């Protein structure tokens, strides 16, 4: 099957909205090289379960494909057209299983030393698309918040080292009611600028009390799903002939109901399942979960507000303890988790800065229940230190 053979009836297994979107653009899709088309279909096939920002991105991309001439299309996709595929890839059911195609294409590109050429083609295409159809700026400047260090009295190393050059460091923050102040401020933004999936609270432990106006994901609340997933993975691994690629394919097919998330918000449930099935380490370490959830929220939902609170992860036991008699009890590693979260906060900021409107965005990281924080934003002097005494609400007011 080649792109030129596309017909509307081939998409009959797509969910309703995805089917409607794709069949409106078949002529534009027929001209695309096979090396790139399934990547686009991978986004389209989940259209019904995507966040608004993702839907807009798909719409924008398809509209642009429809708008450009066939000559322009040839230029835009010249790099992809040069990628040589094999018949095994061509014979895959890439219409109904585009994610599987993309996974196998990735392995094929590595093996045939075409990965660099594909990257060049992708970067070139992204630059053209951004120029032709620029992404929409947020209605208000974005605000990111990271709360790190739960359970640590004194850090072993200076905090926020990777972020200090970008903002103002405070060492006399009044910590009282800090988390409550932050959650209240986030809820105020969400109420003032309501937007579906626009304001998020992610917690690496159990979620603290918060306004339901926020979209919330927590590691603690997903414990039954995580347990079910690990059980499922072990069952699959024990099957004869099972390998890592086959396992990934099986995990990709899991639906919320398979892991006990069958009711409620289908879009959010699917997002949570993906955090657990696509994220490496998210099933085991809460700090990894919180960082990855923050990354994926920023990448996919492009929120106006994101508060990520890291919690202590389980301790990785050294070999000698694992070999000893009593190793079943889960222990926590607050100090290691602080190091993880400090890096995770840096990644959250980096990922926020990749979104439209980055020059106006602000970011706050706070050492929970302590006096240290760092604020980044257009109004905050870079690479500075402040000994001012203030609470977190005041710091936020200076930032936004």
């Amino acid at each position: 099957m080649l792109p030129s053979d596309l017909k509307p009836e081939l998409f009959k297994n797509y969910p309703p909205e995805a089917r409607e979107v794709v069949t409106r653009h078949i002529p534009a899709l027929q001209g695309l090289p096979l090396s790139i088309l399934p990547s686009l279909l991978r986004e389209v096939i989940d259209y019904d379960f995507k966040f608004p920002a993702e839907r807009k991105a798909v719409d924008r991309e398809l509209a642009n494909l429809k708008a450009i001439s066939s000559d322009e299309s040839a230029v835009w996709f010249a790099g992809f057209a040069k990628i040589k595929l094999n018949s095994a890839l061509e014979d895959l059911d890439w219409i109904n299983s585009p994610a599987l195609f993309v996974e196998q294409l990735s392995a094929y590109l590595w093996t045939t030393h075409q990965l660099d050429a594909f990257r060049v083609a992708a970067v070139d295409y992204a630059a053209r698309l951004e120029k032709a159809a620029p992404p929409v700026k947020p209605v208000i400047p974005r605000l990111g918040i990271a709360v790190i260090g739960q359970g640590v009295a004194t850090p072993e190393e200076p905090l926020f080292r990777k972020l200090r050059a970008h903002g103002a460091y405070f060492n006399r923050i009044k910590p009282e009611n800090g988390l409550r102040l932050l959650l209240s401020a986030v809820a105020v933004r969400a109420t003032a600028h309501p937007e579906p999936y626009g304001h998020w609270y992610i917690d690496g432990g159990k979620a603290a009390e918060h306004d339901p106006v926020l979209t919330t994901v927590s590691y603690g609340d997903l414990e039954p799903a995580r347990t079910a997933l690990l059980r499922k993975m072990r069952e699959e691994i024990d099957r004869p002939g099972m390998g890592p690629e086959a396992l990934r394919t099986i995990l990709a097919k899991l639906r919320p109901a398979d892991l006990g998330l069958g009711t409620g918000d289908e879009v959010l449930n699917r997002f949570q399942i993906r955090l657990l099935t696509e994220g490496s380490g998210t099933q085991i370490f809460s700090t990894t979960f919180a960082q990855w959830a923050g990354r994926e929220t920023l990448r996919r939902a492009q929120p106006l507000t994101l508060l990520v609170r890291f919690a202590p992860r389980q301790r990785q036991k050294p070999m000698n303890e694992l070999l000893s008699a009593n190793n079943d009890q889960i222990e926590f590693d607050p100090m290691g988790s602080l190091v993880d979260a400090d890096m995770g906060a840096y990644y959250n900021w980096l990922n926020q800065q990749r979104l439209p409107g980055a020059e106006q965005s602000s970011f706050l990281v706070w050492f929970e229940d302590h006096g240290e924080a760092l604020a980044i934003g257009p109004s905050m002097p870079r690479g500075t230190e402040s000994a001012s005494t203030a609470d977190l609400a005041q710091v936020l007011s200076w930032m936004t």
Partner: protein
Amino acid sequence: MAYGNFLPAKMTPREAAWQLACNRRDFLRAATGAVLGSALMGPFARAVTLPKRRKAVVITFGGGARDQETFAAEGQENIPHLMRELIPQSTFFTQVVNRGILGHYVATASLATGVYETINNFASLPPEHPTAFEYFRKDLKRPSSDAWVVAPSNGFNRIGESSHRSYGSGLGARVLLPKHLLTAATSGGRDYQHLLRDNYETPFYAPELGGSEVELNQLEEILKLSVDEFKAHARTLSSPDELSVYIARQLMRQVAPSLLWITMHDIDIAHAGAYSLYIDGIRRTDRLCAEIWKAIESEPEYAGNTTMFILPDFGRDSDDDSGGNGFQHHRTGDTLSRTTWMMAMGAGVREGVVFDRAVDSTDLVPTLGSMLGFSASLAQGKPIHELL
């Protein structure tokens, strides 16, 4: 699609690789007093003590560490042993480029063959091209006891011997998989799945064995180590790499192979996404490299006639590449994940010298060949003349 929002940095790969190399060079010169190699092609090589047979030990600093956690200014605190003890004694190459597939097994196989292998990283398959061990044994007519691999996981059990029809069967290295031995030694006991998981890229999956790995019942015969001693010592160690180094030291003491390849893997815990554990892995690997060097210097069979190489199989993804997730993986194929370093020290190697020309990962095997006296005739790389 995601491309629109998460664009990589603007620097070209070549510029980025050069920048990495310059950063490493400048830092090393400042920190250790090393001099630029091109200005010092001369008489400072450490003499090879004859007539003992020349030996080589290769350590892969695995599975992959980035500059900012190692040789960049902010990373130096993680590698005190490399910085203070080993680099002053070594010739250091700041720019070693891996142009192959960035999976640990296939990349290590490529290092061992001098050819960019394309085998499935997660299958139990031998390399398709002859390994250094096969060249070494065939050309020099060495017994199987003279070439050994100590590797961390079951996935590496085929690394010692290729499927090449002119080499292959019976000509490769013996392979020791310490974690596999520990699994066998502790069978019937507690569930050690967490400890003995095969690797960090696919933590829930372990391929079946089928190579020439040593089995538990050979432990005593080869290493003069009872199963009980082995288990007791394992209980004092904190990680699989520590177990590997313990086994490697036993091997050096009891068998003294001329070509020994040790693959480290603790750092690859980074795949679990916990930065602190990744840093712990780097610090442990740094310490273990120094321990191996001390063992080389203290073992009569090795002291004075051994060249040691340390190099990562590859790096990890850059923070700047939106397609990855920073230190966690090595999936983007970006410059940072492809550009690493190598240090060589010991017999025949100049001390305190830094070279920043680009060398290739596949140059290692031809270089070993020139040092030890075999011809890596099917390797893609070329001997590194600065080491010869």
